């Protein structure tokens, strides 16, 4: 099957950037508005799956290889664990929020109880790490299943 009809492809082309932006917004503002790494990552992954469904797997596999996805996923997971490790070096214990209230990039002091974009300590950084991981992970699952179905004739006996 050579992907969906051109109508579906054009609507997918138009809506894909908006889904992407919305997902990244959810990840970036995880600690302010409802949302976070997991939810934003799932939205972006659904946008990628939309492109996978609209265009067939060969088109997608020319652009994204499975090894890229597993590298992204390992990077996301690694940055998450390393952020937690920094908690030991700078903060008091593993996973401690050492950036809060330290005037650094994300460490601003919430003035009179109103937190803004850069007062989250390591929460925004963890949001980005988990978001990257969820995007790569969920899309990898759908990508592999689609890849496996599309080459049915190769008998793995």
């Amino acid at each position, binding site marked *: 099957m050579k992907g969906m009809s051109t109508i579906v492809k054009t609507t997918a082309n138009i809506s894909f950037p908006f889904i992407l932006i919305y997902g990244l917004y959810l990840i970036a503002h995880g600690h302010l508005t409802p949302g976070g790494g997991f939810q934003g990552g799932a939205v972006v992954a659904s946008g990628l799956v939309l492109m996978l469904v609209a265009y067939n797997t060969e088109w997608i596999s020319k652009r994204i290889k499975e090894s890229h996805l597993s590298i992204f996923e390992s990077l996301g997971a690694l940055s998450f664990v390393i952020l*937690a490790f920094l908690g030991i070096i700078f903060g008091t214990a593993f996973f401690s*929020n050492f950036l809060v209230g330290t005037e650094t990039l994300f460490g601003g002091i919430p003035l009179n109880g109103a937190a803004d974009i850069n007062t989250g300590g390591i929460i925004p950084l963890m949001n980005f790490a988990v978001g990257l991981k969820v995007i790569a992970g969920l899309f990898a699952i759908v990508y592999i299943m689609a890849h496996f179905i599309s080459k049915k004739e190769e008998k793995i006996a």
Partner: protein
Amino acid sequence: MNFIDLIMSHAPALLVVIPLLGAFLTPLISKINDKVRNIFVIGILGVTAVFVLLVAQQVLDTGTITYVFGSSLQTVQNNTVIRILFEIDALSIFMALVSIILAFVASIYSWGFLEKETGQDKYYTLLLLMTAGMLGMVLTGDLFNFFVFIEITSIASAALIAFWTNKAKAVEAGFKYIFISTIGALFILFAIALLYGQYNALNIAKLADSITFTYLDKIALIIFISALAMKGGIVPMHMWLPDAYGRAPAPISLVLVGATQASIYGVFRVLFTLYGNVIHLPKISFGWILVLLGLITMIVGVIMAMIQTDFKRLIAYGAVAELGYIFLGVGTGLTIIANPDIGISSAPFAVEAMKGSIFHIINDALDVGLLFMVAGAVYYATKETSLNNLGGLARNMKYTTIFFIIGLLAISGIPPMNGFASKLLIYESTYQLNPIISIIAILSSIMLLAVFVKIFQSVFLGPKLKKFDDVKEVPKSMLIAMGIIASIIIFFGLFPDLIITNLVEPAVNALIHPENYLQWLTGGL
């Protein structure tokens, strides 16, 4: 403080995080080449084993360690526990020792075993994740964290059970395992929600302090025990165990034994610590339920083992029978502890029974593990698992035969090996509770010996078969792995009291006295 103190003070967290870090790094390192990745995985598990020993030494000196994730302990004001914390007492570190020995030996064994297989880097990633899951399950002091680590262990082991996807039976065994684990985990989550709804706390110590055994707590206790016993392979719910152990690659069956025993550790933790203060309330004491389950598990395990023709399924049923001993010992202990009129002082055999069964956890893990590795070696050499067309392998597989004899003697409790030490304790103490129980225990142990001697005759002795002429000994790494486990078995067998006094006894005391599990909370920090 210098670097060593920093590492030591954060050692409990590093125990689980190092295998996780290793798991996340393996896909990247396997881009270099296979050898470097194998060495890396064995190195990671070796470092974790060193940390387990260090923390064990610290726990045995200073009693229970509490490690809070996120900040120092003083965030526990007016005894509300907010953050997740690791609560490591003697029993937890004992179980962590069991798991890490199995995982370390499995990683050495699978170097040779999986030489010609594809997908090895994902295999090693999942092996490290399974180890992290088991260690987390055993060390955590938070109920919801316990649920998350149960899920990690079951997903990782389900994928590993179905490693040979070209065999329909392996995929079916993996599906059966993940299906039952998911239903069990969902009901455990339901029980955790029941407790959270009433006491607004997720920490085991805090919950143990505030539980008053209402109607909902009874339901939650029943769900906890049945779901964890199901994942532990106790008889009425053991259907998945022979398939999972029988179809998985040998090193995975080895680590699965540790995962099953972590679930049984969960049953003990729930019974003795979470419901520690209220366990004496129910009229029919839970001890008798455990004793009954243990007996049925032994009998069914041994009987089913007799009629098997597949090598690994037979060992799997042997493992089920061995689990019965563990439940039996702790059950007799609980019958005495739980009813207030005969205290422990007046019935010392309760502590003996508990010591026997906790010691039997590590003995069972090592014996069954060794037998699975022997089965894997036979499969590696002959690509044959059913007993009917195996035979006469002793001539060209000498070392594997020796290891099989050691495993055979150990699992059926013959004096020189470690099985004897723990089973003797169980026989003595259950005799004083009720003679029939110990008679059944001894009988099933003898039947187990008969079953394994049958295997020995049919696989290793017998006429020389034409098709096994070119069978050569298994690669070196598999022999090293089997050698490590065999030497530990012999060491435990010759000096059992060395292990009992400084490893098993503190674990039993930690289980029997829940008040020192709560000490940091009520004692007040």
